[in-house]
């Protein structure tokens, strides 16, 4: 057993739902628990926090036993910070009162000062307000700051963005990105939104029907064809790490470098030299046997067919290796037959568009 990291084993059944997991999670970076609603990812998070009792379970965090046959630490003795889906601020206290509630009770060393938490989440101007005088985004920021103010050794976040609109979402995402940059505590983040995974995840754990169906780096899991149905067929595709090489302000086109080649794209909200994460949706990728001239598609990447997915009816997923990077294309079976595609065939991946998410720091 390694001293750093989280070892969790829980078995829990309510009626037809059962949770049955045995996991080793890293002791740093952002681990996203990803799955559909009802898959058990929130239950798993609640077990880690001690909000749910899973008899016979075992939980060891950084070598310290939080739960086993003889021991069960109640929630208030676990050094966690928990951000709930709705901010769940105390209605009878001001913002400052909410922040101080945990602060006054935490006797741990102050790894994160209250001032730092307030500054990180940008809520300095809200301290005197009552929760019912805050917007949804402000409330969630206070909720996050309140969880940080107890100086947790582990931050648990349960879909903190799900009750917010798109604009608020991206605002809060920026704050959460700052957390992972500036705080050296591991974060376990529950989500069912692929764009949150792209932006935040260092490690991805796929959960389906109360079981872990895949675990690994984001790049690894999003390039696996057998997991495509769980990650989202329509929006899904390979996620790769890249670096901004140059930005042409006149044309609005940016050049990105990744392990395997270069990608041209537009509307990059990042400066040259910055690291970004790119999601290439499988439906935006075509396959050609040679690189066509006179075509509007900007990217023509040479690669080799690695794998052809079996399910999916008239369409199929094709995984190609472009250098060391996997790219997935969703094309018709008809085309696969016409082009005689099979593993080992040299092809060109035509990438029409990429969806790009900032991801400035990586732990890889």
């Amino acid at each position, binding site marked *: 057993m390694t001293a750093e990291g989280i070892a969790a084993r829980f078995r829990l059944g309510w009626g037809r739902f059962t949770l049955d997991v045995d996991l080793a999670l890293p002791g740093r970076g952002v681990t996203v628990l990803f799955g559909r609603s009802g898959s058990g990812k929130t239950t798993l998070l609640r077990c880690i926090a001690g909000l749910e009792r899973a008899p016979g379970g075992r939980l060891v965090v950084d070598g310290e036993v939080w739960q086993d046959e003889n021991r069960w630490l109640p929630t*208030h003795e676990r050094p966690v910070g928990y951000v709930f889906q709705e901010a769940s601020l*105390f209605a*009878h206290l001001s913002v400052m009162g909410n922040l101080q509630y945990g602060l006054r009770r935490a006797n741990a060393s102050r790894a994160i000062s209250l001032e730092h938490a307030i500054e990180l989440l940008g809520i300095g101007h809200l301290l005197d307000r009552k929760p019912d005088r805050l917007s949804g985004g402000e409330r969630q920021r206070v909720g996050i700051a309140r969880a940080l103010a107890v100086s947790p050794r582990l931050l648990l976040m349960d879909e903190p963005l799900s009750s917010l609109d798109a604009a608020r979402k991206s605002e809060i995402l920026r704050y959460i990105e700052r957390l992972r940059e500036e705080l050296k505590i591991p974060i376990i983040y529950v989500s069912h939104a692929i764009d949150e995974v792209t932006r935040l995840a260092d490690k991805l754990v796929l959960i389906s029907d109360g079981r872990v169906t895949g675990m690994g780096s984001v790049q690894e899991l999003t390039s696996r064809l057998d997991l495509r149905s769980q990650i989202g067929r329509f929006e899904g595709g390979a996620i790769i790490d890249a670096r901004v090489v140059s930005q042409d302000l006149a044309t609005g086109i940016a050049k990105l470098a990744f392990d395997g080649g270069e990608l041209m794209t537009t509307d990059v909200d990042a400066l040259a030299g910055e690291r970004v994460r790119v999601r290439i949706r499988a439906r935006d990728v075509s396959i050609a046997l040679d690189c066509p001239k006179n075509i509007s598609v900007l990217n023509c990447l040479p690669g080799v067919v690695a794998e052809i997915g079996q399910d999916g009816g008239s369409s199929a997923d094709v995984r190609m290796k472009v250098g060391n990077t996997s790219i997935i294309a969703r094309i018709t079976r008809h085309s696969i037959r016409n082009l005689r595609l099979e593993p080992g065939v040299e092809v060109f991946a035509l990438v029409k568009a990429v969806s790009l998410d900032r991801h400035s720091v990586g732990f890889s």
Partner: protein
Amino acid sequence: MQALWLTIRLAGIVTLILLLVGTPIAWGLARAKSWWKVPVGALVALPLVLPPSVLGFYLLLAMGPHGPVGRLTESLGIAALPFTFWGLVVASVFYSLPFMVQPLQTAFESIGERPLEVAATLRASPMDAFFTVAVPLALPGFITASVLTFAHTVGEFGVVLMIGGNVPGVTRVASVQVYDHVEALEFMQAHRLSLVMLLFSFVVLLALYAWRPAARRVG
């Protein structure tokens, strides 16, 4: 005047006792998922439907020299409770119990599980969370329950008659005094006391209803 003062003293003491006794019962009923929640809830509501004379009769038996409570008080060297002020207090606690427990239970239930879970993740023990989160959030419920309990104790008659009889300055509360006045054909005195009671009841309810909309925001 003596009867009025006695009534207020009785109602005040009963309200204080019920705040102490009723709060844990209401908390248990609001949070329990166990099977006993239903029978206990029914038991607490019993005084709402039972004729006060029936309740008074059983309490009289229990507190009398041959009842279990009576034997206990006797072995402790305390005089028997019936026909004393403290006998009235004990009886009124039972009689007014649902008026304390039910509003509190509703208030606790409407808070929900979440604020207490939040408190736990912020290092508050269950007891700490109860006093610093549940009680302040349920404050409107506490006020409603206390007012209703006080007012209801002021208005009791049947139980008082069974347990307390009619001892001036000891158990003769306002409602019994009115009855006495009428029996003695002293309609003027009955009028005066009744009017005071009427105004009191109306003012209490008026205050409660006027204040309620503000309370609705909480929770």
